[in-house]
């Protein structure tokens, strides 16, 4: 038998967090309402931990996925066309998600904040320190009173680690009560894979050992997200080798493909 493992069926799984993940969820609550920034590699579970914090505490949240093309008006609000009650087009100021969250005391999740342009950072800076002021002259309100429960949580990939990101402004960093570099998966990968792969411990161990080999070097390090995708693909009938060829092989540079596949063959083929 060339393929080592018997087919398994994908099972639904719940998010399981490591001790570190559970701590992050707890610490986010303790830091409220001050800015919290979680830095870490893509797919390590930062956003999942934030979502879990929101879910467990029954919070209302606004989400913005940051990107270089985002403008201040997209975040805090701007003069935009709107259809009036009488059906005629009107130009009027509309609050953006950030302003809505600030006024109502929601949790504001800024995903991938290192992809955000500097002008927007400047705009929201004063709302993040202890003065908690959001100035919005465009709206005519000038200074907006921020709700005491308004809590900004940002996640980010580290700059210069193969991501299209920029360095975080030092002033923004200084406003963060939590500024944490996540250096290991927040998800309990082993337990989660056990869930997905229907409790097949040997298959799970092969995935974990293969991931450990890849993580010897940053250029091949696989994220928790990709690891879960691979397990799901296996649960949907792909062999592990097929799943790796389709999902992961082409995510690494050409000179690393051989390493990914040699490792995969070592762990998943006999």
């Amino acid at each position, binding site marked *: 038998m*060339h*393929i080592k493992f018997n087919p398994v069926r994908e099972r639904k799984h719940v998010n399981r967090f490591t001790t570190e993940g559970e701590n992050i969820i707890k610490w986010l609550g303790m830091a409220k309402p001050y800015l919290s920034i979680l830095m870490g590699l893509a797919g390590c579970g930062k956003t999942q931990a934030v979502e879990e914090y929101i879910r467990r505490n029954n919070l209302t949240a606004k989400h913005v996925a940051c990107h270089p093309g985002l403008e201040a008006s997209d975040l805090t609000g701007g003069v935009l066309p709107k259809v009036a009650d009488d059906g005629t087009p009107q130009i009027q100021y509309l609050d953006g998600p950030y302003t809505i969250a600030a006024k109502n005391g929601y949790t504001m999740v800024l995903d991938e904040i290192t992809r955000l342009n500097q002008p927007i950072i400047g705009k929201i800076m004063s709302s993040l320190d202890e003065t908690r002021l959001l100035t919005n002259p465009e709206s005519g309100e000038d200074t907006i009173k921020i709700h005491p429960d308004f809590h900004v949580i940002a996640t980010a990939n580290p700059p210069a680690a193969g991501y299209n990101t920029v*360095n975080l402004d030092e002033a923004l960093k200084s406003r963060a009560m939590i500024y944490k570099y996540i250096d290991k998966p927040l998800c309990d990968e082993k337990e989660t894979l056990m869930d997905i792969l229907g409790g097949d411990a040997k298959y799970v161990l092969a995935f974990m*050992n293969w991931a450990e080999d890849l993580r010897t070097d*940053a*250029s091949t390090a696989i994220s928790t997200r990709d690891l879960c995708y691979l397990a799901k693909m296996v649960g949907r009938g792909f062999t592990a080798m097929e799943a790796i060829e389709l999902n992961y092989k082409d995510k690494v540079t050409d000179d690393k493909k051989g390493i990914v596949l040699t490792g995969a063959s*070592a762990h998943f083929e006999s």
Partner: protein
Amino acid sequence: MSRANRMKKRYKTPSDLRRDHRNFTSHLAGDREVSFDNFDKENIGQYVAGVESNNDSIVIKRPKGRLTFNSNLLTAGQIKFSNHELSGNVRNQIARRLFNKAYAPKSYDEEHPGYESAPEGKTKIHKSAHGSWSGFNQAKEVYDAVYNILENFRASKKSAKHFNRPKILKDHLKDIAKAQGYGYETNLEYTEVDDGKEWYNLDRLQFDVDWNELRQWVYSNLKLKDIKNPVIESIVKRHKSILMNASDSLNNISPIHAALTVALDFEMSAQDSFGNGIGGPIVCGKKSIVKTTAKEDEDSEYGHDIYTQKSLNHDVSEEDLEDLATEIMESGVQEYQKGINERLGKQGLSQITIDPNDDNKFEDVRKQIENLKNIEKMNVLCTGGIAENEGIISLTNSIDLSSIHLDESLDRANQGIGSRGYKLTRRAWELPTFGNINVFKKHPPTSADLITLIDGSGSMGYLRSETEGQTYRRHTYPLQQAGDMVMAIRKRFPDSRSFVFGDYPRTTKYEDNRQDAALYEIKDNQFPKYPASGTPLCGSLKALEKEFVLDHARIVIATDGDANWCKTGDPYECVYNILTSWRNKGVRIATLFTPNYEGQTMPKSLHGDVTISAEAGMPIDSLQIKQVFNFIKG
């Protein structure tokens, strides 16, 4: 076609297999350097596939030709699970401690000032150890042999388990069973100390050792009563328990401890044996060799005696041996742990505590160290920024640039790399409605289309003044070559930006915000003055990253060598990793190598798209300029 058959042929040729496995093994080795030593197939049996660690290097020994997948995975696992760094630390400690326990004769110290003095009251040991740690090569050789046997066995079991391939271990056991002594016999020789004799008259003490017998005993292929080599027999008899524990243990410190104990016993017993009748009993002797086995060296015209020692006297008490071994282990572990913890501290990670006796905790520590190495590559600590210069000097070209014409059509084509046009923002509707013309934005990548970065370190030399340039033309410094290239680039691409990088200005202005590297801009024909610098290239690259949107940018880096200052740790690794991440983003990088002298090694960390080499001491020529322009034009 069944799925199993479809997946079967992954490696079509032996060369693919060799290359991929070599890469995979090097990948698992991380930042450790691994070399491969292939022995001829006819020597299979005399050697076995495995890892040999000695003299700070790791060598994978394996037969030439195509190997089985499992055989390749065996050595890959042996690399992965071994702690050769710690072993190297301990190995070096052996020499240091034995040296301190032994001596350097006063006369030798006087003749060779600077060598460490012997502790008071110590006396002579064998000649080769005079005044130098390197004299303890015999102890290191014993250590290497025992450590490699034990560690390969332990790691092969770990490999089989890690890859879930029991056949790896099964095949390895078969290979070992077939192994003969030939490749593993050594001859350890000690030379007597006698200041009254010339070197060629000094007697020697020899030990013929068949390490294969020790290996076969460790692998349970040989019983103690069947061991023929008396030295091995005496080692096994004395250290049976520690050797057996080491090959059964899960943690990689046990083999180090066992090899250390055997090596210390061997060395001190040999020293003590040879001390008799020459300088009296030495380090910790109780009884000594009786030179009854002396034979004259038949090949020697000098007539010195060679004593072939049949066994070790083991005249060092077990307690003394254990004390010294523990002392060296603790020292080696502490040194290793301290180094790792410093690196962990730099990255803000929690510290480790290595407990050689705790197998379970040990695996966590191993993973934590692997994680650290990974983080170090991702988390660059070096910083930099643009700084004000400390004055200006005139930049005059030392070559004729008149042949470089401004070809606008070529330049326009070149702008395509970043889109020079203006782009409307989403507030474009304000233009007709409110007449607001402030609705354009420049596409960010254009701000960093083309940047030239010049190494401002001392080794780059200096720009000759106009007067000096006219009177003294015999040699062109690397900085002048780079300056000429900058002028050529700026003549052709006036929008490009150019910087010299170096240390941060030492003025009080930057006292609160001094970073690891500074960029000093070259404007028109004005070359900045800057403080004397090293080569903080990683910080300079981070400065570029901070100041510009580098997507799709083209960067020319002129330097005469690799970076040599880095806050993250290893400047070579740091530069390499930053450039890798840039290239993944579409940044293209050219290196203008301006060597200081002919035959100088090219900087390897700058793995750009192209390297253009200038000739040492000579002005740059039109071909080199053309090569740079071709790179810029893409």
